[in-house]
């Protein structure tokens, strides 16, 4: 599908690949120019992220962005930095407003646009497509 879509200026295609490694492992990623890997600061999440990043590099995905999510403190960022051997491109803090939005089945941007998590994503959106 991605290969067959028309090239339109100003168009963005954003794909949610689902949890885990299998979609990236099995798929041909040649149509993707940026892979955003979301990682939480604990070992099992970081291990999946590590494998995703290595697969993406092996499959020549041009740009790989790491988003550290649900970060409580500097220790959390340090954990990700050490485990993955790189500085995260974005850090999204633990955010009670996101938890509430999740409970209500709403998007965080509708529930509380001014929340810290949405703010961090605002910065990421800007840097993703300059």
């Amino acid at each position: 599908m991605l290969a067959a879509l028309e090239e339109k200026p100003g168009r963005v295609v954003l794909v949610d690949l689902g949890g885990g490694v299998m979609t990236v492992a099995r798929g041909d990623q040649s149509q993707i120019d940026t892979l955003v890997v979301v990682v939480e600061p604990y070992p099992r999440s970081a291990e999946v992220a590590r494998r995703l990043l290595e697969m993406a590099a092996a499959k020549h995905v041009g740009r790989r962005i790491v988003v550290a999510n649900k970060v409580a403190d500097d220790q959390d960022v340090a954990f990700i930095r050490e485990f993955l051997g790189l500085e995260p491109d974005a850090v999204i803090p633990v955010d009670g407003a996101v938890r509430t939005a999740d409970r209500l089945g709403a998007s965080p941007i509708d529930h509380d646009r001014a929340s810290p998590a949405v703010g961090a994503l605002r910065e990421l959106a800007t840097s993703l497509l300059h």
Partner: protein
Amino acid sequence: MRVVLLGKGGSGKSTLAALLATELTSRGEAVVAIDADTVPGLAQVLGLEPTDEWHLANQAVRDNGGWRLNGTPAEIVDRCSMPAAGNPRLRFLQCGNVDADLKDIEFRRESNLANWSGTIAFNSLSRQYDDPGGWAIVDLQGGTLQAAGGLAGTKGVALLVVEPFAKSTMTARRFAGMGQWPAGIQLAAVANKVASADEEDHVRAALAPVGVPVWTVVPTDPALQRAERDGRPLVTVDPDSPARRAVAHLADRLIDARHPAPSA
């Protein structure tokens, strides 16, 4: 008896599988814990050395254009499962072997027969392995894919792990609506990471319309969260902590389900 854990990714299946295995073995029960996820994770929370070794290679063999297991499920588990250092009543079996190395990523291609046979063997064991005298705890991958493929098997308890968030309750309803569950399976839910009475009500209300009973409510637990973040095995968490006490209650329910009281 078989206990299979299902749920949306991140809902807490592996955590609960590890806590349940620990609780049951502490009561003298024999447990085989099975990690069905492609990336190893259950081993780590059990305090076992995470391994990518493909223990099940060649445990399924070609037979008349199809496949058969290289022994009974019990024989294969006996042969291929890892003992848990420090816990003589616990054995462990892992599915995952997808590594970053591309040659291992192609494990599902038939040309890589050893790995393909391992996958076939693993799927059969997930479906069939049972220990009448002990417990088989199967930690399925997040999502509905493996359950739809029958990896939950045909008997025992299928535990839906549900968080008080819309995506998690929506997923739980999907499991209940997947079609006709085998008659031998009891579908029950565990409400996990529940922070308040409101959140508990939210989970119960979401599951009531699909007739899935909530057997246990596991509260949010700071000590458990710290252990996860530190990468410490969950057995290091105080048995009196809220989550561990809730899992003790869950173990009681499961033991009752194994030998249901005779009706009057």
